[in-house]
């Protein structure tokens, strides 16, 4: 997190020394762009906070813990695709699942789809890239999550 502020600070400084006018223009462009997408981002945040409150972590653990089969992988991918859980929460969650004996392919399906597929971020993705791009990218990413899980189902060694 600090990293991006350091990079931004240094870039701004170099830019300002090179050309104050250009820097001003850059900031204007940034502000205009952020203003354009802000309502969409805000709407997504509202939906995320509602869904995360209705579906607490314990429920996700319960659901994922039940099925260790192909169905489990599929359910895990569906849950991962339709939720947004930040890394600092989702990986400890995955760690708990692993300790409970949930298979690594189910866990891989969950974390991979969480990171690659974004049903909730679809409105923003559509705005930037158009409908077809957004739908096909998410579909392909869903398949990738399943394939990653499939790779893990072949691995017999102890991962922990």
């Amino acid at each position: 997190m600090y990293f991006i502020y350091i990079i931004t600070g240094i870039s701004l400084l170099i830019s300002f020394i090179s050309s104050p006018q250009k820097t001003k223009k850059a900031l204007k462009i940034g502000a205009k762009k952020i203003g354009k997408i802000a309502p969409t981002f805000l709407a997504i945040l509202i939906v995320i906070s509602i869904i995360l409150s209705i579906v607490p972590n314990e429920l996700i653990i319960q659901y994922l813990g039940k099925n260790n089969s192909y169905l489990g992988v599929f359910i895990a991918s569906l849950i991962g695709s339709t939720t947004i859980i930040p890394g600092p929460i989702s990986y400890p969650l995955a760690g708990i699942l692993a300790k409970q004996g949930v298979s690594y392919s189910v866990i891989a399906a969950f974390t991979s789809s969480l990171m690659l597929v974004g049903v909730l971020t679809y409105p923003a993705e559509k705005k930037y890239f158009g409908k077809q791009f957004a739908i096909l990218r998410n579909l392909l990413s869903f398949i990738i999550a399943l394939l990653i899980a499939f790779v893990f189902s072949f691995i017999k060694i102890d991962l922990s």
Partner: protein
Amino acid sequence: MKKQKLITLKNFIFIVFIFFIAISFSIDYDLGENIGHHFKDYLLQMLIILPPIFILIGLFEVWVKKETIIKHLGEEAGFKSYVWVFILAAPMAGGLLPSFPIAYSLYRKGARLSVILVFLGAVGVGRIPMIFFESTFLGWKFSFIRIVASIPMVIIAGIALGKYLEKKQYKLPENQ
């Protein structure tokens, strides 16, 4: 006209939402309070991540020449482009959402479709902060296998979808 209406609808929903949260807190409605806390957390996270990202996008648009992007990420740039976007994605914070405007700006400067698709995939599978969390809680062997499995898949899927869309003369929305 249509766009104007949409914005008003979003504002309306937002006002209703804020009212709902405010009332929930005043009557101690648990679910509403919970939603409010989640919303505050996510909003703060976005408020921390988005300003520097959009400043960088602004600087990128002003300083980076179109020819540079075309040369390294454009139609003729070849496989090296994918290595570049993996490097670009590695330190990214905040997941998919903040990476959309970055990918969009890259495209506007001349990056080809398959390159921005691979970039979005790289954000999903190859961000160093996430790999750090992952290996802490699931073990480095898990991370290693997942990364080795997902990098080629993300590249192949990105190239395939990019080629398909380019064949259909797909164009991204203007002016975002």
